[in-house]
């Protein structure tokens, strides 16, 4: 039973953690090597890893998606999709896909004369099911070893902690003020029932005592 409990909580934590890991912004230092646009079929279950940049796109079977190709400082490739999130989830309110593609084009460089950039993105890259992180911002940096402070995530986790603290306090307050008094009342009622039963048992000694006690149950 204890292992079931652990497994349950581990599963909840994993799902919640993956959700945050997918949704929260991350920063990569990369060198942009190219951009392209490709028609994507978006009718199978992996469509949940793609945006619905406008109202029509929910009913389309396929549509064009823009991509940004890059190389990381360790020489490995990383490809981002570049799609509007619009007013939908995740709440990045990104509408500047075309501008971002232009900025990416502007930062293109080769290995001989590298120009480094930080790409802010959310999402995962998975080659097996062909999913790509979505780029939401790009800015040039001096070199591949810049320090990036994830201000948004720091703020977000502090805020999340405060929200959990508040929810816990709200629950504690609700229990103290609304549930515990009811339970105490119920306990008092129970005790008085108990006491009356004890008194009845005490009176029910002997034959007449028993009859009196029985009669007493009809009186009140």
């Amino acid at each position, binding site marked *: 039973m204890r292992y079931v409990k652990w497994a349950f909580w581990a599963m909840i934590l994993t799902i919640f953690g993956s959700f945050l890991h997918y949704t929260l912004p991350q920063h990569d230092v990369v060198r942009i090597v190219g951009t392209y646009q490709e028609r994507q079929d978006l009718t199978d279950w992996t469509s949940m890893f793609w945006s619905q940049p406008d109202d029509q796109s929910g009913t389309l079977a396929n549509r064009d998606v823009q991509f940004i190709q890059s190389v990381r400082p360790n020489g490995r490739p990383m490809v981002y999709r570049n799609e509007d999130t619009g007013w939908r989830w995740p*709440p990045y309110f990104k509408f500047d896909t075309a501008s971002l593609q232009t900025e990416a084009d502007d930062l293109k460089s080769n290995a001989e004369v590298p120009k480094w950039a930080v790409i802010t993105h959310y999402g995962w890259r998975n080659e097996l099911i062909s999913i790509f992180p979505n780029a939401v911002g790009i800015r040039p940096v001096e070199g591949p070893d810049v320090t990036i402070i994830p201000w948004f995530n720091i703020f977000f986790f502090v805020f999340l902690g405060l929200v959990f603290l508040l929810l816990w306090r*709200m629950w504690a307050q609700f229990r103290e003020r609304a549930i515990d008094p009811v339970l105490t009342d119920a306990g008092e009622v129970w005790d008085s029932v108990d006491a009356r039963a004890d008194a009845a048992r005490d009176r029910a000694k002997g034959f007449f005592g028993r009859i009196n006690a029985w009669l007493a149950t009809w009186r009140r």
Partner: protein
Amino acid sequence: MIGFLRLMVFWSVFAAVAYWSLLIYSRSVRREALEKQWDADPPDGSTDDMRRDFIEQGMAAYEGSLRRKLLWGVIVLPFIAIGTLLYLVNYA
């Protein structure tokens, strides 16, 4: 546009729930503080009616207080946050 409307509808429902639960919580905390304040140092010859009046007056003062009005932040701040994000992501 539909997306925007859907966001607003979802947000309104969420904000209403958050606002009301916070309001109930905040009132409860204030009432408890008033009760404790009275019980810690009740004036001589105090009755239950005096205690009730004291608490009701305190709650009436709370309803007009800045603290109570700050709860509207739960509804207002997210719009500021959305505006800020929209600016930072698309125009900064």
